């Protein structure tokens, strides 16, 4: 047992840190560290820099631009990106549709879609949830019917994140209404410009516009847009959601936020003294740090254990990453609100139409604190709610 990183791993970390802090614009990194929304152009800029340096899709097969890193290297890569405020490559492209096409797609699909997904030449969005299919995703009703050489899609998707920027959507559709609910689903790709697709923005409680409803009204797409086997789309969905879980603890993000909170607590005042002198605030901060240190160690244990685990059989402890990681991230948003005190209150939507709170009142780090608190309540809901994660662990430890 040696819980320190090897000299090679330390050098690897340093190399990434140097690259991230010199190649990715500071203005973008600051916004990420303060939890502000990025513009479409900023997200594209960051991903193209990463991709030009072979760092956008390390998790993909080597043939398609992947890195074949060890689990520890993947961990270091994610940690350094999060610590330095580097926007993660767009998850819909790089950890969802890309890996699914690489795993289940035809050669023609790989050639057509993968390179442009890695470079964010094409922006993908995810058509999974429906008004009646949230935690019970397999009860989805959006249907695709085979008509000649095409699929005709009808139905509605919701919570479609950043669909306002998207060029394409990957859609889980019911293709066999007579089969058991998981067995009649297929994974189909659609160009967002296809006639019959309409989008309605949803404004969330933070005032922002991150998510949308997508309506499909006799949307006709070529038959070749099916990925994987017909009626086996659930396999793609499970594979994709499994990928989603590894980075979900966002330990690096929370570390960066706690460091920032500690710095800012020296600038804010309470009772005539710096807030950092307030014992109660310090104890709250310390309690959150303990949780995060424990989670960091848990994540490292799971990462180190990956070599001992059968492929595709995640350690039940990996659900802990979501459970604990989400609540820690949420706690950091509470601490930030507490930090700015009354300046959590001013609200003014920015004129860029994305709902960002740019009030011009109080310190510049204050404007985002309320919206981030409200917005980040989503973290314990999306990607399999924390209650669904508990069901998964319960099944693993109790067998029921």
């Amino acid at each position, binding site marked *: *047992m040696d819980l320190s990183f*090897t000299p090679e791993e330390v050098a690897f970390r340093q190399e990434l840190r140097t690259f991230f802090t010199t190649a990715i614009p500071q203005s973008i990194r600051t916004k990420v560290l303060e939890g502000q929304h990025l513009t479409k152009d900023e997200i594209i800029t960051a991903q193209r820099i990463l991709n030009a340096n072979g760092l956008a899709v390390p998790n993909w097969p080597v043939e398609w631009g992947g890195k074949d890193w060890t689990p520890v290297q993947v961990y270091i890569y994610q940690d350094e990106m999060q610590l330095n405020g580097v926007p993660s490559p767009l998850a819909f492209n790089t950890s969802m549709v890309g890996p699914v096409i690489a795993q289940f797609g035809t050669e023609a699909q790989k050639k057509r879609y993968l390179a442009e997904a890695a470079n964010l030449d094409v922006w993908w969005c995810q058509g999974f949830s429906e008004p009646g299919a949230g935690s019970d995703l397999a009860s989805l009703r959006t249907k695709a019917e085979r008509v000649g050489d095409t699929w005709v899609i009808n139905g509605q998707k919701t919570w479609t994140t950043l669909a306002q920027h998207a060029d394409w959507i990957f859609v889980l559709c019911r293709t066999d209404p007579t089969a058991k609910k998981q067995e009649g689903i297929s994974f189909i790709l659609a160009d967002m410009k296809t006639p019959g697709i309409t989008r309605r923005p949803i404004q969330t409680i933070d005032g922002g516009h991150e998510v949308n409803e997508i309506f499909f009204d006799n949307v006709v797409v070529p038959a070749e847009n099916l990925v994987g086997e017909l009626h086996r789309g659930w396999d793609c969905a499970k594979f994709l959601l499994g990928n989603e879980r590894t980075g979900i603890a966002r330990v690096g993000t929370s570390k960066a936020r706690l460091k920032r909170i500690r710095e800012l607590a020296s600038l804010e005042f309470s009772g005539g003294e710096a807030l950092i002198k307030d014992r109660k605030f310090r104890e709250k901060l*310390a309690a959150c*740090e*303990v949780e995060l*240190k424990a989670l960091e160690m*848990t994540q490292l*244990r799971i990462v180190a254990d990956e070599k001992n685990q059968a492929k595709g059989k995640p350690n039940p402890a990996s659900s*802990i990453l979501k459970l604990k990681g989400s609540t820690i991230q949420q706690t950091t948003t509470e601490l930030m609100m507490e930090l700015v005190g009354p300046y959590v209150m001013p609200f003014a939507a920015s004129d860029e139409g994305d709902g960002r709170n740019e009030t011009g009142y109080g310190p510049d780090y204050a404007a985002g604190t309320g919206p981030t608190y409200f917005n980040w309540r989503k973290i314990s809901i999306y990607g399999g709610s924390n209650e669904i994660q508990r069901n998964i662990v319960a099944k693993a430890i109790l067998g*029921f």
Partner: protein
Amino acid sequence: MDFDFSEDQRLLKDSVDRLIADRYAFESRKQYMKEPTGWSAEMWSQYAELGLLGLPFTEEQGGFGGGQIETAQVMEAFGRGLVLEPYLATVVLGGGLLRHAGSEEQQAELIPQIIGGELKLALAHIERHSRWTLNDVAVTAVKDGSGYVLNGEKSVVIHGDCADKLLVTARTGGAQRDRGGIGVFLVDAADAGVSRKGYPTQDGLRAAEISFANARGVAVGDPGNALGVVERVVDEAIAAICSEAVGGMAEMLAITVDYMKQRKQFGRAIGEFQVLQHRAVDMFANLEQAKSMAMYATMMAASDDAAERRQALSAAKVQIGKSGKSIGEEAVQLHGGIAMTMEYKVGHYFKRMTMIEQMFGSTDHHLAVLADGNGLF
């Protein structure tokens, strides 16, 4: 980054696990508790035979040459078995002070006796007013010839009733809470100036109130400046009880999960009820976090950077305190009435966790230590 044990560590773990599984069944433990000392002399000699009493001492000293990881392995197994013997007091605390601060002569004389199972030690560091502050010391030690004369009282000395020799923190100078002026003194428990009142603790172990009236002692380390070494040894002991607690928590979860599969109400296993499942999952999550922090404590206890080490051990103790309380309370609740009984094992783990939370600083104490530091990241 490698969490795997070495071949030697695996062998050690196997043999300790087997010993506890074979010899420390719940019924056996009840018998051991009835012995006059409150623990099993036979098990103590088993530990000596297996080399466990020599674990942290060097091979030149006749020991096993183990480090914090080996101690953690033993303590985790002891946690599963709810072991009663004075291992922490003798080997980790007493042995630790001798290793870090003992003179060559003291080491040469005493360490072989520890390894052989003939010498039991205890650390007397708590006083009525001191709570968890190691430098809050009123017991005095005054130079007298080649030794010292000690006066004052020590509280809740773990296994102080059976110890052959006591390691006592006492003041040779300075005011009551000064960091300087504190020494550690080796006092023979049979000295005419020592009087002890032994008693059982809530968790079935033993402790003593000890008073010193002109008791004779010799200094271990610098008699005017030993606080640093006491802090170091206490940090090692915190790491050790973190691992012990993890063993106990893991056992509580396993017993509870098993019970949830067997126990039927409303015509089905209670483990089928989602409200109970989610509580069991929270126990699991708390256990995983505790395991992680026990490993962190094990790794950091060996650090020579005292400030960094103190922060890390406080962080671990906070996590262990919270996890132990939560897992213990949930284990009792999920069982229902049966876990309220002395005859059922779970309540005994719960009691041990509750006492561990109070050893070497409570959760709140360590949170306050962390709050005064510069952060863990």
